[in-house]
């Protein structure tokens, strides 16, 4: 069945709530008429307000409360409408959730799922658009999932909810309206498996979340020019599917890692470092990465034009790595809407 990514999240939540009474779902606006961009819409009507509920604007406490509830048998799913709001809860996530199993000698884990939505465009600006997956991926004890497709949105969410460790589940706002086929039923995808989205032997492109969409445009555009790339959708940042990345690099000899976050200290840098240090002899050219620049994202549309990595940048980077001229003008021309919206369906404000 084809649904939007947002509807797939909702289906994943509904499936989990139906499958296991220990699942609860809360966060600001969870039961409001918009239902967090449709992802939690009306779930409270089906599952009751004890299990699906709104909360005070108390992100730090509510995260700790989720941890305590998890220690006492529940599987809480906490949603933040922006990742930026979840920053208030870092202490609970990093010092409690991530460490609990370890610091008490493995007695008990913390099966919580924290959904965070990454904003972009329409002037989301410095504090509503941060893509900080590398922060969470840096913390031993946390898992970090970043789905791209509607199917993965549902199945990886189910995998996250029924995982026995804390999972940071990052949804890019620009994916919410994308359509895809979603499997019916309680399909729980295990975390840590990448997917090869396109196969080729020219360059290995490693992407995640919305970056995969831009990469797909680039890869298909390059294919028409006779350049076939491997495109790996990581789906999970921690654990990261190193065997998939390594196997691809051994085939192509070239690595281009993409990252929707800042360049310095990012996930792409980690991938480049690991491949360069451990698989140097597999490489035919220096590994490359494309990421957001090391500045906050401004609000003005005039300042975000070249902020994010887009398909043309990816195609050009592949061309540079191969020492080939690639044509990108037609790729840019295909985009029929302003750079700061994901499509004509989006006209602000949030």
């Amino acid at each position: 069945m084809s649904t939007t990514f947002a509807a797939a999240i909702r289906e994943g939540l509904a499936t989990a709530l139906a499958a296991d009474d220990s699942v609860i779902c809360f966060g600001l606006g969870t039961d409001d008429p918009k239902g967090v961009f449709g992802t939690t819409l009306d779930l409270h009507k089906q599952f009751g307000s004890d299990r699906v509920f709104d909360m005070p604007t108390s992100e730090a406490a509510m995260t700790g409360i989720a941890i305590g509830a998890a220690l006492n048998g529940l599987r809480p799913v906490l949603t933040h409408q922006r990742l930026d709001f979840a920053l208030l809860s870092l202490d609970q996530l990093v010092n409690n959730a991530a460490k609990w199993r370890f610091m008490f000698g493995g007695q008990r884990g913390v099966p919580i799922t924290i959904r965070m939505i990454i904003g972009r465009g329409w002037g989301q600006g410095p504090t509503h658009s941060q893509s900080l997956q590398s922060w969470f991926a840096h913390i031993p004890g946390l898992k970090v999932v970043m789905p791209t497709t509607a199917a993965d949105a549902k199945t990886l969410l189910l995998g996250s909810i029924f995982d026995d460790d804390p999972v940071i589940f990052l949804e890019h706002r620009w994916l919410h309206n994308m359509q895809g086929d979603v499997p019916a039923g309680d399909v729980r995808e295990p975390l840590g498996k990448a997917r090869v989205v396109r196969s080729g032997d020219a360059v290995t492109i490693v992407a995640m979340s919305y970056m995969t969409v831009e990469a797909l445009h680039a890869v298909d555009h390059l294919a028409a020019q006779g350049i076939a790339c491997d495109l790996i959708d990581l789906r999970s940042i921690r654990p990261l599917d190193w065997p998939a990345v390594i196997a691809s690099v051994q085939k192509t000899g070239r690595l281009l890692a993409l990252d929707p976050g800042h360049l310095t200290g990012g996930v792409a840098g980690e991938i480049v470092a690991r491949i360069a240090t451990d698989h140097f002899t597999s490489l035919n050219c220096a590994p490359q990465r494309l990421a957001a620049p090391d500045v906050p994202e401004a609000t003005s549309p005039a300042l975000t034009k070249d902020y994010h990595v887009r398909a043309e940048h990816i195609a050009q980077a592949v061309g540079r790595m191969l020492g080939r001229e690639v044509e990108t003008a037609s790729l840019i021309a295909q985009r029929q809407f302003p750079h700061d919206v994901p499509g004509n369906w989006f006209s602000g404000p949030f």
Partner: protein
Amino acid sequence: MNAETSRRLLFDMLRIRSVEETIAARYGEQTMRCPTHLSVGQEAVAAAAGAVLKPTDLAVSGHRAHAHYLAKGGSLKAMIAEIYGKVTGCSRGKGGSMHLIDESVGFMGSTAIVGGTVPVGVGLAYPMKLNNTGQISCVFLGDAVPETGVFFESVNFAVVKQLPVLFLCENNGYSVYSPLSVRQPPGRKLYELVAGFGLKTFHGDGNDVRAVHAALSEGVAAIRAGEGPRFYEFETYRWREHCGPNYDNDIGYRSVAEYEAWKLRDPVPALRRALIAEGAISDADVAAMQAAIDAEIAEAFAFAEASPFPDACDAFTDVYAADAFAPAAG
């Protein structure tokens, strides 16, 4: 209250209302490309605070800050240009509607994370106390803010150090679509809750601008006299949707009847009627005010539209004091 102050309050409320309604009317043109939270219906507290605070007093606010910025004396042109993302904007296009600043009038910044500026406002007050400057720091906040830990931590410190802080809460009953009833227990009064921290707290009708003005006049004088921080809660109502230009009474989180009841308590015509009845102002005076406001707004929008966008390279500036680091290569 003298007639001059009353007229000022009416003018400032009319001005805020007209600015916000113009933004709402023109938002659909898709040239104001940022999340925008309007204060229509909530003009009274801002106007009263603006009249009570001195230009040398400092203020901070949150996401719904247009009214606070304007009432404190912030440049209208720079605010509209900021919403348009122009280089002439008060934050040079970096921040948009949710990040307003005009230090020339003591508006030290509004930010978008709920509760984020509360400790900053308390921090502003610390050197005021140290140096005995006679200033006060005004922290504008919504009814969701006393749900954040940082609010209570900040109030506590302000009380411990007896800092000159005015915590000014506009309780409009909602945080986005969530009524207070899902965020506080039944019967809870925010001003009673906060009083537990050991500061004087007050509450009142946030749509009665003269009552707000009277309360704040007394309060600000006391804070200025060194009596420590105070918390004021005023009940009011946001007319339009939480974020954006439209009405949203149809989506079901609040009733049309509730909205209509609050509309009857519109603070702007209430003051206008009272002043006319008192003979403090005439219909012609009000028309002249409105004409002056309309002209100023037209000029501000024209200024914003005619202003240039920032240069693309401005995206890389202002991260550090000096541009110590070259922008990272992509």
